[in-house]
């Protein structure tokens, strides 16, 4: 490649970074989705005095730059002496951030199931949880899954910001190599971009496909 001086060592170094990117994405999505489901359920059916404060609190996470959330929480946990390593800090902050978006997705999904359908289910003798399990979940998923896939991709890209708290993920590892081989900056950045793209693009296609398929079935 243009007689490049990039070695296999550099590529593996970047791949390790990419692995970390995926690991953070995984934990953030796991934590964020679970929390988001709980919060979403609560928000969808609680009285306003629970719903509003909760909404306002989660809204803060969506109104402050993620970069600043990373730096701020990192600084907070250090002051509080929690001794978390940067990887854990990254996962925790990103999970909280994810949960704020996931809450809205879940709330929207539940809201998308017509009330009449749910009333019908209940009058057929289904319990609340049966109604949730057999009516709301399958119908709501059609609305929720495409958004959730979009969220996953968003989170994957947002992991690039953990750069700021010293986690050597994909972008940071590329930057480290550029430090030593500045004349290869473009090639290295292009490889990093390609890795992001190759992970993100197929998943986003899948999301679009599901959305289209389900819309046609409606």
């Amino acid at each position, binding site marked *: 490649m243009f007689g490049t001086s990039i070695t296999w060592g550099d590529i593996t170094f970047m791949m390790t970074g990419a692995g970390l990117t995926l690991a953070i994405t995984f934990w953030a999505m796991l934590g964020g989705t679970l929390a988001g489901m709980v919060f979403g359920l609560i928000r969808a059916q609680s009285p306003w005095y629970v719903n509003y404060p909760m909404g306002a609190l989660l809204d803060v996470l969506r109104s402050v730059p*993620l970069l600043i959330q990373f730096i701020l929480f990192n600084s907070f946990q250090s002051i509080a002496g929690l001794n978390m390593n940067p990887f854990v800090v990254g996962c925790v902050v990103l999970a909280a951030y994810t949960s704020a978006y996931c809450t809205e997705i879940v709330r929207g999904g539940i809201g998308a199931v017509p009330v009449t359908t749910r009333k019908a289910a209940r009058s057929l003798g289904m319990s609340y949880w049966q109604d949730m399990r057999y009516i709301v979940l399958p119908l709501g998923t059609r609305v929720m899954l495409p958004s959730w896939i979009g969220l996953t991709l968003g989170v994957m890209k947002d992991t690039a*910001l953990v750069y700021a708290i010293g986690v050597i993920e994909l972008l940071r590892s590329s930057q480290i190599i550029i430090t030593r081989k500045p004349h290869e900056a473009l090639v290295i*950045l292009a490889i990093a971009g390609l890795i992001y793209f190759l992970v993100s693009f197929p998943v986003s296609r899948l999301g679009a496909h599901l959305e289209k398929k389900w819309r046609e079935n409606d």
Partner: protein
Amino acid sequence: MFNINYTFHWNQAFRALPQMLEGALVTLQIAVLSMVIGIVIGVLLALAKDSRVAALRWFANIWIEVARNTPALFQVYMIYFGIPAVLQLVAGVFGVNFRALGINIFYLDSYWAVLVGIAFNNAGYLAETFRGGLRAVPPTQTRAARSLGFNAVDSFRLIVLPQMFRAVFHPMTNQMVWAILMTSVGIFVGLNIDLTGVTQELNARTFRTFEFFALAAAIYYVIAKIVTGGARLIAWRLFRY
């Protein structure tokens, strides 16, 4: 409860408030400009993606997919450090020295790199939003306009576009908030005059990370709320009938 051996110096942070608010203005400026550029290009990309010319479709597709499938930080980094690298490569191959020729437009200052990067990102996301919005305007509207004597451009500009903007106003507001939040990645390409840049410099000088960034977070939150509130007001004025 916790082993806190840290005393907060809030006073130091509040003293820097005027400086930080100046930074917030720069942040807002970048966000607004990047939105304006993003909206214009976004509309063009939305049209290009559904155009009959294959080259236009390809161009729009590549732009949209790259903008949506790579991190914004990466895009800004690429524009700041990547484009000059392309030029160096070209210069190396053809033996041209762009700087010696006085061609400096590609050596973007941090401010412009962030602006261009975020506008690029906005355009990609907005294009998809606009395509959805265009689909929401029934084709009968265009036909009705044409039969009333509007030409193609006018019927798009005066009939279709306003209805589309109405359909996508809410996602556009979201994009505006994102644009504000995205400007914070400017610190990675040398931007030191926006809110995050100013905060980071104060932090590096004083090592008072928590105080300064907490204040910055509060300012970002207020800006975001003002923008969403303002948008709601505008929507109420524009779209009631």
